[in-house]
């Protein structure tokens, strides 16, 4: 991991005013809604009013969009790689910079909600739900960051957002297709177990990539531990980073902007 690459990534983000404004809105929006809910509702306070950990995905999207692609587009990646740094190190540093920054933002958001809750109801100060929610956010940030870094390594500029949208659209198309196949096999009285199981594998694959969620709040209670999400998370991170490194090492960079 290279500290300079991390710091450059954060500085670059700070220089972009649009992103800073979006980040501020993303940060303040849920907190304002949460505060209004807390103060304006007569119902008893409970930890379920916390914003969903999925918010972390949006923070990551904001931080990670075009994280490598922009440097490819501007031609600065060739300059960065002129330093004594490997592409592997560069990619891992980018992933860490994005994951860390997004985690920090999303954990800060949940921390603010925690403080507001604790002011309203001191009994919630040590509620484990906040800790679980925060951990889930961190995991989501690093998981999603790996996938977005991989997408960003494939294209230049902000085209990775288009790739992400295309991936989501594929998921929608697949769901419609799988539903049709399942209905058809049911209608024709075929044994559709294979189609059902196979379809679920594909669905799980899409879900693991788009939403690498690990239910930490359930694990923290010590009730049960599901191995599937944990394996999926590590697979996603290693596979995406490996792929990004492989793609970039087999790509030629020019000093001129694309």
């Amino acid at each position, binding site marked *: 991991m290279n500290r300079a690459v991390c710091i450059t990534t954060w500085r670059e983000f700070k220089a972009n005013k649009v992103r800073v404004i979006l980040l501020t809105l993303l940060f303040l929006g849920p907190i304002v809604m949460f505060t209004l809910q807390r103060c304006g509702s007569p*119902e008893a306070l409970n930890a379920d009013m916390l914003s969903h950990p999925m918010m972390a995905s949006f923070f990551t999207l904001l931080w990670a969009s075009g994280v490598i692609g922009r440097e490819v587009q501007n031609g600065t990646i060739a300059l960065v790689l002129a330093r004594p740094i*490997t592409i592997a190190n560069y990619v891992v540093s980018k992933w860490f910079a994005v994951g860390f920054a997004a985690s920090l933002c999303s954990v800060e958001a949940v921390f603010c909600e925690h403080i507001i809750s604790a002011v309203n109801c001191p009994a919630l100060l040590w509620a484990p739900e906040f800790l679980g929610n925060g951990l889930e956010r961190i995991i989501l940030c690093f998981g999603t960051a790996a996938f977005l870094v991989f997408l960003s390594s494939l294209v230049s500029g902000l085209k990775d957002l288009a790739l992400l949208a295309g991936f989501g659209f594929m998921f929608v198309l697949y769901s419609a297709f799988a539903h049709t196949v399942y209905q058809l096999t049911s209608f024709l009285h075929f044994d559709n177990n294979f189609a059902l199981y196979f379809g679920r594998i594909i669905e799980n694959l899409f879900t693991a990539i788009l939403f690498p969620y690990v239910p930490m709040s*359930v694990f923290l209670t010590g009730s*049960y531990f599901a191995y599937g999400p944990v394996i*999926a998370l590590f697979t996603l991170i290693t596979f995406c980073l490996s792929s990004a*490194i492989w793609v970039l090492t087999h790509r030629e960079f020019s000093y001129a902007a694309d």
Partner: protein
Amino acid sequence: MQPTKSKSTRYQPKGLYLAAAILVTISAVYSVSDQFADEWLDPFTNGLSGSSPIQWRCRDEALSESKRTKKPILYAFLARHDNASLQMYGEGFHDQKVADLINQSFIPVRVDFNTRNYNQKSALYTQVHNQYGYASTCQLLTVPAHMTDMSSSDLESSANLSEAAIDNTRGLEGGDRYNYNYNSRYRNGFVRNDGHGFNGNSPKFVGYTNKRELLDYLYNAQHWHRLPPTKGKVAWLPLAVASAPLTSKPRLIAFVDNAGTASDNMRLDTFWNARDYQLINKEFEPVLVEFRHDDAAFNMPLDRLKAKYGIATLPALVIDSSKFAAPIVQFGNSNSVSTHEFLKSAVKQAAEAAPEMQSPTQQQTQQQVRQQMQQQMRQQAYNQTYSQVYSKNGAPSQDGKYKTKWAPSHRCQDKACSKSHELGRLGLKDPND
């Protein structure tokens, strides 16, 4: 950490590639096995496996234990691929407070879906589903001990005004069709969020969001169908009148169960309907024969009356008189309108029947004797009912919160008020006044 100078920019991290390849293989094997080979990876993939602080029973064991201990059975419908089920099992059932409450007050039975394929249900699921008709994957169902052979609609129905969440009886007295099903919002998996708490109780809890809702449900469900059903506003005569010799005034004998939709409907639709209870109080000698569901010892003496009039199922209304050649019987409870027509036709028939040949003196004496007998019987009825109200309506819950919820429906504030209320209902005066 400074980058190594010996490595080129396009250095390939073989270790990372190898780790990625291994993890992808493991994920693929895991995913395929998870879907196609249930039992092989069951300890790893099944979130519903492992130890649980709840002492689960099998269904047969639960049925026999429920009969013995009179505790309600709590069916938990769980599916391993349903997130709400996993959450309820992991977070809710592993909470010590929830587990203690379930172990103390219920006989818990797990109804798991057999496989991931929702078309292939387990035998137990099919058995329970066929009886109660519930199909949701994350659901709790409370079955009181005396209602284990009943259907879902019977479980949901109640003729106790507190249980049925009827806080005023104007609707019932006006003959409006009152939706007395208990807290219908709960059936959709929601609870009241208007700050007033629950309207009442329900045998069913669908979905899971947090422990608080689960605990609320369990606190309420443990008392479901524990309170006696209403007898309406009919001035019932004691049971002994049913066996007394017939008189010229028609005698109405109502055979009802203490549970079940049909009996509950009759209690709420007819015995509370002002049009009906006024007619009954004026024109009939009403006697209520209350059976207890699944209590053969209690029902044995009452079965003779049932056999006398050839009644097979409950509820039923029998009208008999010395003027009638044979008793008139209404089997079941179709609706309040038909029951009213039935009562009116009986009154008409009694009026049209030939009067008994008696001298005026005989008639006067007989009337006096009957009035005295009725007065005595009403006094006995008052004594019985008064003692029953305070022995049965004692708060069944463990804490003060639910004492008020399960208080008698007439909301009397003290014993004197309640006493006068009961006297008024029976048409009597307080002997101490």
